[in-house]
């Protein structure tokens, strides 16, 4: 009995002693944290995805308050979060451009030929290690769904045609899938950007054509049809270098593309004036 009592008293006194010391130290050493940081931190989505360029939401909140970082960097929270941060910081709200991941490949099961059949661990990363994948095209999507599994927001679905489909409503532009893809098929684009090259192949035209029906065959017709300089051709592949310059004058290139490698992401959103229609006719 006495042992029990003594142990309790001993530990109790010790604990109390340390508690007092710590309390005193806390009073002396407390670091005043700007309450704004806490406030902004609670508003941020806590996805800790790193899309803003900081390791976590807390770091971004600190950077906003202390270093005057831009308030529109959180692509997960989007405009509502930016507006709320603006309110806290007492500044004018800035426009957040939502970015989304997009798939730069149309090598569907049907369009892209295979070298053979891969049997092994069902991930793109593993498949890519085996003679860089089972598709004849070395640049194309492997279709084992690493991006689907990596997406924390459930925005990516593997379609029956072997390519991922990205739900642009759900996609927050965090860029995790972009990192994950061993073939660099995915890329972040502002959501209002509508023209895209659905191919990554830098193979010579002949080879690209032989291995995939939908590949960019570097015929250059879209670049020639576009006088504004929105497109350029480099290493057997067309790049959209200035999406804002892709105006109506250039639409002819998309119509003329023999493989459909350059196309609108959302063709239904494209408004053509009569002049274009006439030209086409």
């Amino acid at each position, binding site marked *: 009995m006495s042992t029990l009592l003594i142990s309790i008293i001993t530990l109790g006194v*010790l604990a109390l002693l340390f508690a007092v010391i710590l309390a005193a130290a806390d009073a002396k*050493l*407390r670091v005043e944290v700007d309450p704004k940081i806490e406030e902004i931190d609670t508003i941020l989505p806590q996805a800790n995805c790193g899309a803003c360029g900081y390791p976590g939401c807390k770091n971004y909140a600190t950077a906003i308050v202390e270093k005057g970082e831009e308030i529109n960097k959180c692509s997960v929270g989007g405009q509502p979060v930016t507006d709320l941060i603006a309110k806290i910081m007492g500044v004018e709200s800035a426009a957040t451009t939502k970015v989304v991941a997009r798939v730069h490949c149309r090598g569907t099961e049907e369009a892209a030929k295979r070298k053979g059949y891969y049997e092994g661990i069902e991930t793109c990363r593993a498949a890519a290690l085996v003679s860089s994948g089972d598709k004849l095209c070395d640049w194309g999507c492997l279709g084992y769904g690493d991006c689907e599994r990596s997406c924390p927001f459930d925005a990516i679905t593997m379609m029956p045609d072997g390519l991922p489909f990205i739900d642009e409503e759900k996609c927050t532009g965090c860029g995790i899938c972009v990192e994950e893809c061993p073939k660099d098929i995915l890329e972040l684009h502002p959501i209002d950007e509508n023209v895209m090259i659905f191919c990554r192949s830098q193979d010579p035209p002949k080879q690209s054509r032989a291995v995939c029906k939908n590949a960019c065959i570097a015929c250059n017709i879209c670049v020639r049809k576009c006088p504004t300089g929105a497109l350029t051709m480099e290493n057997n592949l067309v790049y959209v270098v200035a999406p804002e310059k892709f105006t109506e004058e250039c639409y002819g290139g998309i119509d003329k593309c023999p493989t459909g490698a350059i196309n609108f992401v959302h063709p239904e959103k494209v408004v053509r004036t009569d002049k274009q229609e006439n030209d086409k006719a």
Partner: protein
Amino acid sequence: MDLLIIFVSALLINNFVLSYFLGICPFLGVSNKLSSAVSMGMAVTFVMTITAIVTWPIYHLILAPYHLEFLEIVSFILVIASLVQFVEMFIRKTSEAIYDALGIYLPLITTNCAILGFALIAVLKNYTYIETIVFGVGAGLGFTLALVIMAGIREELDFADVPESLKGPGITLLVAGILALSFMGFAGLIK
């Protein structure tokens, strides 16, 4: 002379990290940058020294006379946890940069087995008060030494052409193993 032997022995021969294999978590976790390795080592050395100063009286003046040796681990943990809390406050107050660099590993000093291990070993070896303190400083500096060597190697390793499959943890563990092996060379230093 005895004190010197205890010091060198804790520093090199029975190095806590590379010979007892205690405190491996921060050894691998905070050793990717030399500057944070130094401050982590200093924090651990500080905690170890104060632990030595505090735990010896607790054990020899309170626990042993009342035959409460079984409370040893609990009370040592209490001491260490409070100390780490204190160190954390102190570092946060003095240098935000170091605080950020140490990150989660700072509060994790609480559960750093090197420190509890040190306190228990000191009791086991029946050191006097002065000896325990010297032992604490030596063990802490030994930990710092291991961490700094490791950080130095890992900083160089960033420029090395490491085989793909060994990148990251693989090569780090290999380096740690070889380092531990080389520390065995000190074994004959003191008879």
